[in-house]
C-alpha cells in the first residue's frame, strides 16, 4: 500500500523508524581508552539539558518520599486519629491543628501522612502499569517484529483493534471487568490499555532494523537468528520504547486518577494513592478544595517530572536533534 495505512500506526511506526535510524558524530583520530557508547553520549547530552535536570530532580524527590514514607510521615495513614472531630453534618473535614499540619480527611486520618504514603502507592501503580505495558508490548512487538509473516499479522490485528479504542475507555472497561477495583486491577487495566502502543512502537522499529544494513551484515556473517534478534534488532529498537515508557509513567498516574474519578479505581483507601485521593475528594471540590488540590498538585508534579524526563530523553535519543 502506498498510502500510509492506518495513521496512528503509521505515526508510531514513523517515530520508531526515526529513532531507530542512527547517525553518528564524526570521529577524529582513534584515541586510546574505552569507547563512548551511544548511550553514554546520549547521557552526556542529557546531563546538560536543564529540562532533564528539573524533571529528574522532581522524580527523584518523589522516589525519595516514597522510599522514606514510613520515616517522613508523621502518622499512620490508616488510623482515624481525628475521628471524633469528623461530623458529616457540620465539620466533614477536620482542619489543620497541631501535629496535623494539613488537617485530616473525612474519616479523620492525617492528610499529610496520606499524601506522603500516597507517593508510594502512586509509584507502585505507575511502575506496575508501565512495567506491564512495557513487557507485554515487548513480547508482542518482538514476536511480530522478529518473525513477521502471519504471527505479525495476527498480533498486529489485535493491537489495531485495541488501538482503535480510546485507552482510558479500554482501561475503564478492563477495570469494570474485574468487578471490584483494587490496586492490581488498576495496574492491569492501565497496563493492558497502554500495551498496544508499546507493541506497535517496538514492532515498527524492529521492522526498520530488520531491513537495515547492519542486520543484513549480521545475517551475511551467519549469525544465528535469535542472536540477531536479541543482540542487534532489539537493543537498537528500544530507545523509542524507553522514551514511551517514561511518558507512560506520567499518563498512567493521570489515568489512575481518572479511573478513580470515574469510580473505577481502587476503592480501598487503606492504601492511599493520589489519584484515588483526588477521585474521592470530588464531593469536596468546592467546599474543601484543599482535599483535591493537594493530591492534584502531587499528581501534576509527578506527571510533569516524568514528562520532562521523557521529553529530554526523546531529544537526547533522537538522532535528528544531535545537530
Amino acid at each position, binding site marked *: 500500500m502506498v498510502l500510509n495505512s492506518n495513521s496512528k500506526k503509521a*505515526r508510531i511506526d514513523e517515530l520508531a523508524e526515526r529513532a531507530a535510524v542512527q547517525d553518528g558524530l564524526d570521529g577524529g583520530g582513534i584515541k586510546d581508552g574505552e569507547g563512548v557508547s551511544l548511550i553514554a553520549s546520549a547521557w552526556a547530552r542529557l546531563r546538560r539539558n536543564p529540562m532533564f535536570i528539573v524533571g529528574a530532580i522532581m522524580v527523584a524527590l518523589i522516589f525519595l518520599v516514597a522510599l522514606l514514607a514510613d520515616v517522613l510521615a508523621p502518622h499512620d495513614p490508616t488510623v482515624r486519629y481525628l475521628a471524633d472531630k469528623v461530623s458529616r453534618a457540620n465539620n466533614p473535614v477536620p482542619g489543620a491543628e497541631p501535629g496535623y499540619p494539613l488537617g485530616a480527611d473525612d474519616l479523620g486520618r492525617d492528610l499529610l501522612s496520606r499524601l506522603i504514603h500516597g507517593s508510594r502507592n502512586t509509584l507502585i501503580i505507575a511502575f506496575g502499569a508501565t512495567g506491564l505495558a512495557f513487557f507485554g508490548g515487548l513480547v508482542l512487538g518482538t514476536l511480530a517484529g522478529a518473525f513477521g509473516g502471519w504471527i505479525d499479522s495476527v498480533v498486529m490485528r489485535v493491537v489495531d483493534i485495541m488501538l482503535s479504542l480510546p485507552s482510558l475507555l479500554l482501561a475503564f472497561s478492563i477495570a469494570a471487568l474485574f468487578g471490584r477495583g483494587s490496586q492490581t486491577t488498576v495496574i492491569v487495566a492501565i497496563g493492558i490499555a497502554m500495551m498496544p502502543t508499546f507493541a506497535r512502537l517496538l514492532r515498527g522499529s524492529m521492522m526498520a532494523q530488520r531491513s537495515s544494513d547492519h542486520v543484513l551484515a549480521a545475517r551475511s556473517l551467519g549469525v544465528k537468528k535469535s542472536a540477531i534478534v536479541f543482540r542487534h534488532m532489539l537493543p537498537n529498537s528500544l530507545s523509542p520504547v524507553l522514551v514511551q515508557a517514561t511518558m507512560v509513567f506520567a499518563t498512567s498516574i493521570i489515568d489512575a486518577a481518572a479511573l478513580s*474519578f470515574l469510580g473505577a479505581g481502587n476503592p480501598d483507601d487503606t492504601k492511599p494513592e493520589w489519584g484515588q485521593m483526588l477521585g474521592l475528594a470530588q464531593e469536596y471540590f468546592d467546599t474543601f478544595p484543599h482535599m483535591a488540590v493537594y493530591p*492534584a498538585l502531587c499528581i*501534576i508534579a509527578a506527571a510533569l517530572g516524568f514528562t520532562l524526563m521523557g521529553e529530554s530523553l526523546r531529544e537526547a535519543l533522537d538522532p535528528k536533534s544531535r545537530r
Partner: protein
Amino acid sequence: MLRYIARRVVQMIGVMFALSLLIFVWLRMLPGGTVSAMLGERATPERAAQLRKTLGLDQPLPVQYWKFLTNALQGKFGVSSQVQAGSDAMDVFLTRLPATMELAGLAIVIALITAIPLGYLAAKRRGGIFDALGIGVSLVGVAVPVFFLAVVLKQFFAVEWHLLPVSGRQSPELEATRVTGFFIFDGLMTREFDAAWDAFKHLILPAIALATIPFAVIFRITRAAVLDVLDEDFIRTAEAKGLKPSTIRTRHVMRNAMLPVVTTVGLQVGGLLTGAVLTETVFSIPGLGDAMKVGFQERDFSVVQVLIIMAALTYVLVNLLVDIAYAYIDPRVRIR
C-alpha cells in the same frame, strides 16, 4: 485511491465484526449486569430470573450473540436499559452524538488555532519566548488531569465569577427549536441567535478543558515538523529564489509541516473521546462520554456495545478521512 478506500472499508468491517464479538463476550463476563441494575434493592432471585428470561439473557452466549448480530444487521442494536431507557441503543448514540461532536469539534478547533501558529512561531524562533510559552503550556496540558482542570475552570469562571454557565448544553428557558441537535448550528439556522450564543457559552469551558491535550500534542508536532521542514533543502531553494517570507511560510513550510499535523489530528479522536467522558461528567453534558460512563456504571450493555463499536468506527473513519486529506495535501501518496 478508490481501491485504497475500498480496502480500508473492508478492513473496517472486519475490525467491527471482531470488535463486536469481543465486546459482546466481554461485557457479558462482567459481574452483575442489566438485571441487577434494573432491580436495585428490589432484586429477589425469583424476580431476577424472571427478568433474565424475559430479556433472553438466560440463553447460551453464542445464541445471544447470534441474535444480537442478526438484529444489528437489521439496524436494531438492542434497547437501552438505563442510559435512555427504552430507546434503541443506536438512537442513544445518534441523539448524543451532536453534543459530543460540538464539544470535541470546538476543542479541536481551539487546539488547532492556538497550537499551529504557536508551534510555527516556536520553531521559527527556537528558544524564544513563544517557544518557552508553548512548551510550558503543552507540558502543563499533559500533566494536569483533564477533569481536575475542568473543575478548576468551572469553579472560577462559572461559580465564582459568573462569567459562563455551570453545566449543561443550553439554558432550558430559551426553548430553542431543535433541528439537527447541533445546538449552535440549529440556533444559527433558525435565527435564534440568542440560543446559539447560549449554547456556545455552555461549550467554552468544557472545550477549553478538553483542548489541553490535543493542544499539547499538536503544538509539539507542529513545532517538530516546522523545525524539520525548515531544515529541508527545498526551503533553501525557495530562499535562493528570493521568494517573499509569506510565500515561503504558507506554500513551502506550512504545507509540508501540515502533513504530520494532519495525521496527529486524526489520532486525537481517541483522546478526545476519553477526555469527553471526563469533561462531560464534570459539565453534565448529555453526550457520548456521559452515556459511556453511565452505561458502564449501570451495566447498560446495549448502549456500551454500540458506543464502543461506534467509537472504534469513528476512529477508523476519521483516520480514513485523515488519510484522504493527507493524500490531498501530499501528492506522493496520491498514486493509484
